[in-house]
């Protein structure tokens, strides 16, 4: 049914559930499985370049480790990832664009990630992705 599943993974509890769900569905449908993580908290208005570089380096380290752990989990189910990428920028836009670029037919993500305070005012990433993505979106609780 689904040939190309994309999981949005930020290390939050709900995104870990999304990963587990994605693994189960990829097994069931013999689908390709990809994950994407988005660094969203790089300060746009900064005092000096070093501040941006150090924040970026921090998030690169954090998400690289997350994705590596995710891959280990996937491997423990005798599967492998088709693609795994880290993007920087607006989370929902990045997930939607990435999903289009790899032609995924299902995006799985947790109902509440790490967007924190902003999601209370602007809506969660899951809401925005489900509203604007071209493909089927599954929100895991």
């Amino acid at each position: 049914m689904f040939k190309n599943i994309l999981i949005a993974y930020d290390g939050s509890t709900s995104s870990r559930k999304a990963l587990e769900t994605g693994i189960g569905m990829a097994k069931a449908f013999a689908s390709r499985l990809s994950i994407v993580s988005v660094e969203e908290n790089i300060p746009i208005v900064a005092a000096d370049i070093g501040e941006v570089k150090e924040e970026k380096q921090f998030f690169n380290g954090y998400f690289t480790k997350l994705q590596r752990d995710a891959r280990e989990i996937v491997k423990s189910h005798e599967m492998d990832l088709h693609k795994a990428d880290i993007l920087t920028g607006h989370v929902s836009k990045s997930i939607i664009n990435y999903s289009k670029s790899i032609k995924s037919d299902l995006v799985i993500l947790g109902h509440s990630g790490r967007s924190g305070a902003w999601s209370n005012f602007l809506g969660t990433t899951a809401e925005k992705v489900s509203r604007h993505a071209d493909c089927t979106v599954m929100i895991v609780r």
Partner: protein
Amino acid sequence: MENVWFVAAVWIGIALAASLLSLRLGISVALLEILLGVLGGNFLNLQTAPWIDTLAGFGAVVLTFLAGAEIEPEAFKRNLKASLTIGILSFLLPFFGAWLFAYYVAHWEMQAALIAGIALSTTSVAVIYATMVETKINETDLGRLILAACFITDLGTVLALGILFSKFDIWLLVFILVLIPVLILLPKVLPIIARRWSGRISEPEIKFLLLLLFFLAWLATAGNSEAVLPAYLLGLVSAGYFVADRAVLNRLRVIAFAVFTPFYFIKAGLYVSFPAIASGILLIIALLGVKVVAKFIGVYPAARFFRFNIKTSNYMTLLMSTGLTFGSISALFGLTNNIIDGTQYTILVTVVLGSAIIPTLIAQTWFRPDGVEVREVELNRPCDTDYNEQGDGEDYASFPAVNHIKDDDSINLGGE
């Protein structure tokens, strides 16, 4: 609030709150320190003290040095003609535009109008860099050219700030006579110092840099120039060395962001008055408009001349309309030296803050060039590689980037 320890605790408490909010909201700690300073000044009667002014001054000087030290000399040389042209125009047009507008339309005193010109001529290299990181444009020739042009613009700003208000007396001559050999010798001396003293707990390299910064700041201010002028020039000449060895720069940044710059940014916000914003809102909008229009008149034709397409030229111009650090430094210089009053300071800092946010959002939303957007992770590295969540164990810049994602089963996850 007389007790110095209590005052220190309050200011550091505000700085800590800014850091925590910054982590929570993903907004720069500098911007939040300014905003909390504004709230503290307007609602908590937060006041400065001589020792706070001194730490704030250290913050401005070290921050300016760090800003100068981030230029990539090779990229600058490669794009010399274009970056010089765009950078100079990006300084001159807004400088004259804001100066003449403040003088003739807002009827500010000549000296105050000059401060307006300088404060609004700036470009925030950091804001531009942060914006470009998302699309990886900073790693392209276009990105390097824009960044190099920004350094030229900021050089214009610090030169104007350092020269226009100087007394041309013996002290200025002494300052220049000391500054020139230091600028020539520093790039040669830094590697020697690093070889001899690197990695020692007593941090002689940091102390050496601080000695130069503070000594030259003393000579500059004795000649009624501005302390940030030698700091920026020292940063620029030593940038070549720091490309290869960023350790000293990183340690200096840690010290600056922990101890010095919070005092500077909170103080910068402290003098911003809400009533002055309300009464001067039209002037604030007008000056912001003058800055952006002047940048367009200066930068856009130059960008088109160097054959950038319309979308990219708009993007470049909008990014070069941003400002934060040097704008606030210029305004605070004017206020500290009684060149501008509190109302004028409020207007200038509000325009500076507006220019940090509004052009960035417009550029990001409507004019972002299509570019590289994805960094592929080296998942094939062994998992016991020495990674940690602090992100300080690896040079991630060396990770392979991909321009386009291939729709191909055979793609190597480790990057090709």
